[in-house]
């Protein structure tokens, strides 16, 4: 069967190609048959078939056309099922164009890039919970299998399959159409897409499991999809801002986790392990974007990440600039967590007492939130009040939901309790601000 003399494409090469083609193929098939739900299942099966056949039999001359043909055949078979027929009728109804202007012209060239964009908007539809939207986006746009997505979220595969299937039904019932949002809906819908991409990134970034190597890298996947979105919407500054934020944050990843899965806060990271190429890319991206005007929250967070990344040593961090950026961010997108981070920056510029005063303004809004206790603890330590700092970190340890952070806080408490004043204390360390 296989061509013995010429080495076939490697499994990774095939996977990369398939993930690139997946949204285009799905866009084409969903548009053609006007049944997103069944098209999505059919395309998954076509991708699976390709992933087993292509590494041994070689990639067909026109891989995209091959996938469209196989998926279409599968879709028609699925339609023959009774249940699926009912679903098709529902879907056809849901996708019925409202006016003549919405009807895709039969003679129009296949707008594959637009289809990818359509898919993203559909998968990140505001009627879905974030968890569902993330899963559906990874499958339909990212081309990951249900098994891979389940592994990424550490849930059993049937659970994930059900979540994805329900998400598609929700979209069908909501009457969402396979079309771009109109001008009125555009901002809100784009914001949903960006939120889903950011959550996907954070999910990957936050995982500190020892077995993380066995799981698909959600951060890289989120970066890939955001890059794709950036190519489709080059004029949207917040898309570029989000991409820069992800790239600049991801650049620090290798330095963030110690050999035992322990969290290493920003000021103590070995900056030699930061990814310089990624930092250069992120800095260039955010610098170019900020010049365009209309600054949004993702751009500001990216700008803050860039300032951190550009410091060769923690002591060289340009805190006044970070403080100014948090000030702008607080005005653009008021949020007590932003204030919390601004308090850290303020402490580094004007001293811990100024930061503590600012913290007291968010006591009500963040009552009982462990992050408040973490930051207050570190600022109290900077101010020299170790006992009060320990009390705060204890409250934080009882409140965190992360094992890695719990371990970190317990270590910090132990350090504070045994620290002696003459040792150069790492108390110029306000913890890692989390944007």
């Amino acid at each position, binding site marked *: 069967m296989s061509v013995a003399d010429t080495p076939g494409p490697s499994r990774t090469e095939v996977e990369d190609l398939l993930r690139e083609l997946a949204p285009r193929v799905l866009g084409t098939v969903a548009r053609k048959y006007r049944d997103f739900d069944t098209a999505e299942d059919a395309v998954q099966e076509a991708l699976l078939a390709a992933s087993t056949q292509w590494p041994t039999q070689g990639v067909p001359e026109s891989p995209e056309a091959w996938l469209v043909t196989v998926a279409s055949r599968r879709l028609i078979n699925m339609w023959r099922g009774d249940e699926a027929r009912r679903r098709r009728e529902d879907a056809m109804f849901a996708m019925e164009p409202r006016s003549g202007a919405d009807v895709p012209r039969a003679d129009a060239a296949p707008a594959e890039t637009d289809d990818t964009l359509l898919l993203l908007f559909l998968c990140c539809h505001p009627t879905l919970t974030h968890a569902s939207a993330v899963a559906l986006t990874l499958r339909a746009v990212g081309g990951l299998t249900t098994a891979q997505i389940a592994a990424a979220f550490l849930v059993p595969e049937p659970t994930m399959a059900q979540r994805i299937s329900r998400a598609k039904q929700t979209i069908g019932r909501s009457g969402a159409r396979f079309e771009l949002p109109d001008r009125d809906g555009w901002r809100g819908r784009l914001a949903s897409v960006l939120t889903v991409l950011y959550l996907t990134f954070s999910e990957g970034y936050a995982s500190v499991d020892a077995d993380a190597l066995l799981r698909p890298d959600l951060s890289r996947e989120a970066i890939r999809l955001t890059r794709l979105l950036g190519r489709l919407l080059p004029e949207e500054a917040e898309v570029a801002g989000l991409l820069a934020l992800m790239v600049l944050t991801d650049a620090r990843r290798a330095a963030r986790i110690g050999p*035992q899965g322990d969290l290493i806060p920003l000021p103590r990271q070995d900056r030699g392990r930061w990814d310089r190429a990624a930092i250069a890319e992120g800095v260039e991206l955010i610098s170019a974007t900020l010049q365009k005007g209309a600054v949004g929250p993702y751009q500001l967070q990216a700008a803050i990440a860039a300032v951190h990344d550009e410091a060769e040593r923690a002591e060289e961090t340009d805190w006044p600039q970070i403080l100014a950026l948090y000030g702008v961010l607080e005005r653009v997108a008021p949020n007590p967590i932003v204030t919390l981070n601004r308090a850290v920056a303020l402490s580094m510029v004007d001293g811990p007492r100024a930061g503590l005063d600012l913290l007291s303004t968010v006591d009500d809004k963040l009552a009982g939130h462990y992050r408040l206790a973490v930051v207050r603890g570190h600022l109290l330590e900077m101010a020299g009040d170790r006992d009060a700092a*320990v009390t705060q970190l204890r409250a934080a340890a009882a409140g965190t*939901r992360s094992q890695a952070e719990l371990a970190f806080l*317990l*270590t910090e408490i*132990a350090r504070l309790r045994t620290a002696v004043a003459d040792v150069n204390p790492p108390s110029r360390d306000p913890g890692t601000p989390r944007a």
Partner: protein
Amino acid sequence: MKYMLMMHTPRDMSGGMESWSPEDVKNHIEFQHRFDRELTEAGEMVFNEGLTFPDQALVVRADDKGAPVVTDGPFPESKEFLIGFWIVDVATAERAYEIAATASSAPGPGGQALGIPIEVRPIAGPPPIEV
């Protein structure tokens, strides 16, 4: 055979890790990571999680309409609470006890084994096959 191994810890945190030296905390955490890794490498780990502190625990009961009634912190009288668990798949009960003993021997202050009580419970299996 699957077993659930449950680790309990005293409610009073001040009697716990908070009073240890940084070195002791570090050793304890390293022990836990190594323990989990070895169970995974042995092909015996099914699932494990650590829990948050009981400050975050709530008790929920249904009211007469089936709606949730949420009350604060459970069982204030209990001195120990569940802090983490492992589900292991092992060949024999003895192996489950052996694993539990290792978990129990996690180091505390000065590297002394803590002797943490580990509850070992067989997980209910499928019904017997009728012949």
